[in-house]
Each structure stands twice: as structure tokens, then as C-alpha cells.
């Protein structure tokens, strides 16, 4: 069984973003970049499935400039077998990424697609569902548990108010939620091996996809700051303020 895992290079989880002075975008110059945490969980899940003997090959795909190879190598250090980078100047829209993935799959014919539920930069939460639609295959978003057996996937999803478990035919798309697993550390020998794993670079033209972002970014602003209020000295004072000043009780 072949699994395709898509990963995105994003600002590191621990870095606080700043908006550029001209409000054109956020400032990412010289910012520490890492693999998107949900994508890392996706890689880990694929590796666990491989260790369990369910998946035989893990192909990691990333779309973006050469720098994304850093995150692809990281995915390979965690256990992905090979990589396909689609070279683009910047990160395209979710729909375009889904189209590129669908195109890559024409050659790869994967049985399972594991993606992060969202990237922590754009917060879109779209690519997995779009890929499933384009391939006309089942989707299981926000997965907290994935079981594969007999050509079927049973996926437990984190939804509002609880958990829902679905069973689906393969191939299928799974998007990962935070608690699906806790990614391992990359082991030193695997970091070394990752350098030797094959990494193919394809262009958008080779894949015959025309990028078509119809959503234009007009401006980016910092959010309104909330101001610190007052400290109250007692429960009585607190209740008085809530009842009489704020009038929320």
C-alpha cells in the first residue's frame, strides 16, 4: 500500500508573527521555518502504518520553492521513503495544491493520502478535502485515530461535541488532528539516510497544471489588541463589577 503525505513549510510554531509596516503581508524575513505541525503528525501516522506493515511506501510531496526540501528531508528523516517537490515561487492556493497532488497521483496511484488538517500560517483547512473531491474518493477530516484493514479505513474524527467514526473504501484522504499521535524525534542515522533518499523535482508546467489563484490578498493588519483591565481585591468586588459595571450577570 502506497501512502502520499503532503507537507508544508511554515513559520515555526514558536515564533510570533509580525505584520509588515506597509500591511502588505506578515514579515517572514529571516524567520525560523519548520514543517507544519499537522503535517508532521501526518508523516508520523504514515510511518506508524509502515512500521505496522500496512503501508509499504511513503511518498512525501511538497509544493514551493527549493527551501521546502528542508522539510521534505525532515519528513524522510522521520521515515518517508522518497520525495516529490513541485517547484513554485510561493505557496499556491489550496485548490492549486490539491490539483497538483491529484496530478502527481496519476503516476503514483496511492491508496492513502494523509495531510495535516490545516497549515498554521494560512489556517485554511482545505487541501485534503479538495484533493478528495478532485479524486472523487472518501475523506476523513480531523482524524484522531486511523485503522487500516482489508482495503478499508476506519477513522475516528474529532468533531464538535465529540467523536465520529467512519469507515471508508480506499483510496481515501485522511487529515490529521492534533491528538492523532505525538511525532517522534528524528533519529541521527535516519537524518543521515534522509540525505540519500530520492527527491524528484517537478515543475508546474511538467505537470500541466495552470495555477489560478482567484483569491487576492489585499492587506494584512495586526489584530486589535485587548487592553488589560483592572485587578479587583475580592469576590464581592468582582461580582459587583460584573453585575453593575459590565452588566453581564
Amino acid at each position, binding site marked *: 500500500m502506497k501512502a502520499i503525505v503532503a507537507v508544508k513549510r511554515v*513559520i515555526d510554531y514558536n515564533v510570533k*508573527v509580525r*505584520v509588515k509596516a506597509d500591511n502588505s503581508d*506578515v514579515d517572514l524575513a529571516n524567520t525560523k521555518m519548520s514543517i507544519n505541525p499537522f503535517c508532521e503528525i501526518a508523516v508520523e501516522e504514515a510511518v506508524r502504518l509502515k512500521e505496522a506493515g500496512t503501508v509499504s511506501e511513503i511518498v512525501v510531496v511538497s509544493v514551493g520553492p527549493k527551501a521546502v526540501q528542508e522539510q521534505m528531508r525532515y519528513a524522510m528523516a522521520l521515515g518517508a521513503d522518497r520525495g516529490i517537490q513541485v517547484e513554485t515561487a510561493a505557496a499556491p492556493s489550496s*485548490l492549486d495544491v*490539491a490539483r497538483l497532488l491529484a496530478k502527481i497521483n496519476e503516476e503514483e496511484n496511492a491508496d492513502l493520502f494523509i495531510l495535516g488538517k490545516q497549515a*498554521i*500560517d*494560512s*489556517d485554511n*483547512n*482545505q*487541501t485534503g*478535502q*479538495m484533493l*478528495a*473531491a*478532485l479524486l472523487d474518493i*472518501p*475523506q476523513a*477530516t*480531523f482524524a484522531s485515530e486511523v485503522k487500516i484493514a482489508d482495503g478499508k479505513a*476506519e477513522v475516528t*474524527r*474529532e*468533531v*464538535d*461535541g*465529540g*467523536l*465520529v*467514526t*467512519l*469507515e*471508508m473504501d480506499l483510496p481515501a484522504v485522511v487529515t490529521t488532528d*492534533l491528538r492523532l499521535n505525538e511525532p517522534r524525534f528524528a533519529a541521527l542515522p535516519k537524518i543521515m539516510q534522509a540525505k540519500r533518499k530520492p527527491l524528484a523535482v517537478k515543475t508546474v508546467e511538467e505537470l500541466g497544471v495552470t495555477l489560478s*489563484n*482567484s*483569491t487576492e*490578498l*489585499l*492587506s*494584512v*493588519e*495586526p*489584530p486589535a489588541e485587548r*487592553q*488589560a*483591565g*483592572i*485587578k479587583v481585591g*475580592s*469576590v464581592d468586588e*468582582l*461580582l459587583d*463589577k*460584573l453585575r453593575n459595571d*459590565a452588566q*453581564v*450577570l
Partner: protein
Amino acid sequence: MKTLIIAEHENGAIKSATLSAVTAAAALGAPVDLLVTGNDVAAAAQAASQVAGVSAVLTAEDAALAHPLADLIAPVAKQLAGDYTHILVGASTFGKDLAPRLAALCGVNQISDIIEVIDADTFKRPIYAGNAIATVKSSDATKVITVRGTAFAAAASEGGSAAVSAANATVGTAKVRFVRADVTESDRPELDSADIVVSGGRGVGSKEDFAKVFELADKLSAAVGASRAAVDSGFVPNDMQVGQTGKMVAPKLYIAVGISGAIQHIAGMKESGVIVAINKDEEAPIFNIADYGLVGDLHDILPELVSKI
């Protein structure tokens, strides 16, 4: 211009995420239709028809739609999409699951989690976990949008009188089967729609001590939330987590108990009307955003609050 909203419903009632989407749709200034899908939708369709500001209610009824599966609902909505310039869904897990699949079927991009409508093409939405607000403009003929519930008040669930009719759409067969739902049973209001939320953090101390948080919440008829630290410590289940990677809430009153105020938690609740912080560490960052801060031991303060409310 015309807007379709795909409704989320439960036990014959329209969920608040959908009602917020109705309010967002009103800002577009075009007629609003609601699509209700399910196995037996009569009650939900009836409820939908009474939502203020809805022009028409379309239903798609099929045994296969008994559970809200994006794989089936998206193709139904796709068949109706030609009549609409905007298709909105609440940004709940239902909407987030469905909208991108629908957008891809329509061959358009999707706009996630809008918090403001500037005009029919232009919207504001948070990015980077709310640390930046993007203004985006779409040139797609059909705009598929999810609406952040906390940014739009819920439309009145009564006062409307829309006509109900069956949608002209066929329902396909799914390659997905519903196995089971493990729904957290609770008499308390839901986190994302409650007027008051009481949240506990690691400072609460233990699973047992969390009872004090529930007690206060019950006294206030409030929903109960938690910080990621409290969830990770095993005090409460995952679906109670408020924050960047959990639920976004914006109640009228948010009471943070024993929560230090990690950025990722604040991202999930900073739109609340009034924020109260109770913490024994007077330097806790939560006080920087709280309207009212009370420094002290929550194990003393909570019982006192309960006794005096």
C-alpha cells in the same frame, strides 16, 4: 446575487453556527436560501423556515443523508450551485469538512473562517492563529465561504416564514459509512454558542478539583472549557479545549480559572465580551487581557463565588 447556506441541524433545531452564517449572509445584501439535508428533515426544515432573513428553504431528503457526510452533501450542493453567487457554511467541524470539498467540485477556491464582510467579494479572515487579519478579495463566480460563528451574532430563529421545497438534486451513493458517534453528553450549553464560558487550566490542579469549575459553570448556566495544558494533563476531554488548536469562543462573559494565558489559548477566547481571570500568580499573562483580574487561590475563590452568585 443570491446566497445559499448549507444548514447544520440537530434534533430538529438549526445550530448556532448556521444562524451566524445567516447574519453574515445578510451583510451581502442578497436573498438567502437555506439547504437542509438529512434523512427526515421535516422538523429541521420547519425550523429553518422560521429563521429571520431566510427567503427559501430547500431540502434534500435521503436515507443516505442520515449522517452529515461531506462526501454526499457536497455533490448535492454542487447541483444547486449554479443558482448562487455565494455559498456559506458555518465554520464548525461540519462546515470545515464540507466547504472545501464543495469548492473543489465547483472548481473554485474557498474562503475560510471569515470574520467580516466588506463587500460581496471582499472579506476579512484571521490567519496565523489570529495573530494577523487578512483582507481577501475573491474573483470566483461562486464564492464558497465558511463563517466564524463568534464574529457574527446568531440570526433570530423565529420571525421568518420562508417557503419550503425539495431541492432539485439527486443524492449519490457514498463510499463512506457511518460507524458510530461518541458524543459528549451534557446538559450544559455548547461551548461555541454559550453566553458564559468558565474555563479551567492546569492551575486547577487535578481532575477532581475540576469539579469546582463545573460547579461554578452550572451556577451560571455556562459552558465549560479548558486550556490545552488542562487537557494534556488529563483533567478534561479534548473537545473542551479552547484555543488555537481547539475551539474558538466569544461568549459575553469568559471566566478563566487557573489559566496562565498562553498565546494559543488567548487566540481562542480573546473576542469574548468581558474576560475575568482568576489566578494565584499576579504576573500571569492572562491578566494582560482580562477586564477584571482577581489574584488568589482558586480553591477558595470558586466556592465563594458559587455561594454568592
